[in-house]
């Protein structure tokens, strides 16, 4: 005996009753209280047979093993880097896991990854208290140079990627950009022209905003078609000022500090 009280794809708030009776079982995002199944969060109902789950619509990143993430190097000591992956704790990348090259003991770690660098890394382990271990050994894991990074709500990542990468593939195709999507909601976009990158970023932000809307793939496709090659290039810069003195500080690699 049991009644389901909500519909597939209905938006529910925490504490909302989804079903009563013992027939239905709470899955991810739902819990049972006596004979009722109740939503645990703000999200969208998804029913699979007798399982009711609530797909989150918002929320910060919760690190999980095997996730590909885009992180920012925050700090380092003699043997590891501390990398912000968007969670309360930084992830730790040990020098043994940093690259397929061999790093000698006592080597200058900042030569590989310096504070402020963005990297694509993989989570190898998450402890009970959510300490995070990272690796950068593996295909596609690397320092991200150039381009820009957009932060979206991590729960929208599957929508941005699409079934078998179809959505993100479409954006890559239309904008000619390299795009890397981290499970932590950070997306790296790198293209030849800033206008291409901007178009890709706009498309990604649009997916995030309209992720619950049906027919999204078509909407994004027409958005890309409409704006491809038509995004206004920024106007000509004001005439450069004659600049006599004080060079900005640079480190010995010539990169601006």
């Amino acid at each position, binding site marked *: 005996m049991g009644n389901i009280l909500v519909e597939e794809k209905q938006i529910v708030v925490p504490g909302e009753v989804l079903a009563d009776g013992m027939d239905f079982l709470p899955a991810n995002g739902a819990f049972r209280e006596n004979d009722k199944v109740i939503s645990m969060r703000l999200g969208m109902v998804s029913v699979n047979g007798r399982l009711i789950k609530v797909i989150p619509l918002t929320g910060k990143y919760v690190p999980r093993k095997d996730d590909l993430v885009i992180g920012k190097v925050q700090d380092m000591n003699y043997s590891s880097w501390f990398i912000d992956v968007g969670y309360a704790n930084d992830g730790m990348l040990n020098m043994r896991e940093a690259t397929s090259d061999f790093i000698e003991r006592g080597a200058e770690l900042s030569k590989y990854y310096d504070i402020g660098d963005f990297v694509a890394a993989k989570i190898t382990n998450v402890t009970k208290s959510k300490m995070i271990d990272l690796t950068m050994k593996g295909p596609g894991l690397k320092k991200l140079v150039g381009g*820009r990074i*957009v*932060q979206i709500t991590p729960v929208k990542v599957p929508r941005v990627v699409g079934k078998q990468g179809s959505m993100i593939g479409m954006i890559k195709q239309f904008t000619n950009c390299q795009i890397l999507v981290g499970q932590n909601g950070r997306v790296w976009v790198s293209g030849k022209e800033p206008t291409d990158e*901007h178009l890709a970023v706009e498309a990604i932000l649009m997916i995030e905003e309209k992720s619950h809307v049906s027919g999204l793939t078509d909407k994004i496709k027409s958005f890309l078609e409409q704006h491809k090659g038509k995004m206004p290039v*920024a106007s*000509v810069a004001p005439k450069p000022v004659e600049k006599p003195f*004080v060079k900005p500080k640079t480190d010995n690699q010539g990169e601006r500090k």
Partner: protein
Amino acid sequence: MLSISKQYIHTLAKKGLRADQRKMEEFRKPITVEYGISAKSAEGSARVKIGDTEVVAGVKTEVGKPYPDSPGDGTIMVNVELLPLSSPEYESGPPSIDAIELARVVDRGIRESHSIDFKKLCVTEGELVWTIMIDIYPINAAGNLFDACALAALAALKDAKFPKLENDVINYKEMTEISIPLEFLPVSCTIHKIADKFLVDPTRDEELASDARLTVAFTEAGKICAMQKGGDYPFTEEEIDKIVNLAAEKTSELRQFL
């Protein structure tokens, strides 16, 4: 939300480009000014939005003894609190140097420009004068708090009226129709230098990548009435000249919103 490295912003700026496709001298849109957002309690109040940056400001008044060396003058007081509500960057606690700088720059623009005639704030010489207190709070800090806070303070002042004074004591429950005497509006604009190019209304990322900045306030007549330089790097005289011209243009634009 976008996260852009300093390097990238500089690379773009060298070409005269910005990550959000704006022109270098373009403000974010929309810019809105709303008056009377705390009309029940504040003597004057306003909310300013410049793109995603949102700031509220309110005016409260007080009467008291004047300073002994200026017995016929009232005064103003400007306070900015960088609310932890408005950004993950801010923590609870006493005002940081950033909050203090913001408050003092806004204060300078209003006080030193003589936009308020302090003599008009005098009730009884040597005995009783008005103090106008302006409190400014960011609600969402997304870059360019200098201009947003200054604009919000001005809007709140414009909205403000004196409460009733009964036997030298304020009756906050009753308002008069008399506005706080603003001789003119000292509108300010902050110009930033990134990779030797000038830009206006930076996002937070652009602000963090900025080499130097100059805030310039103008009277309606086009005279400069306050300035403040910040940032790690210097300006040349020619740069300052160009900046002042750009700021003059931009403050005229901003003035229209008040």
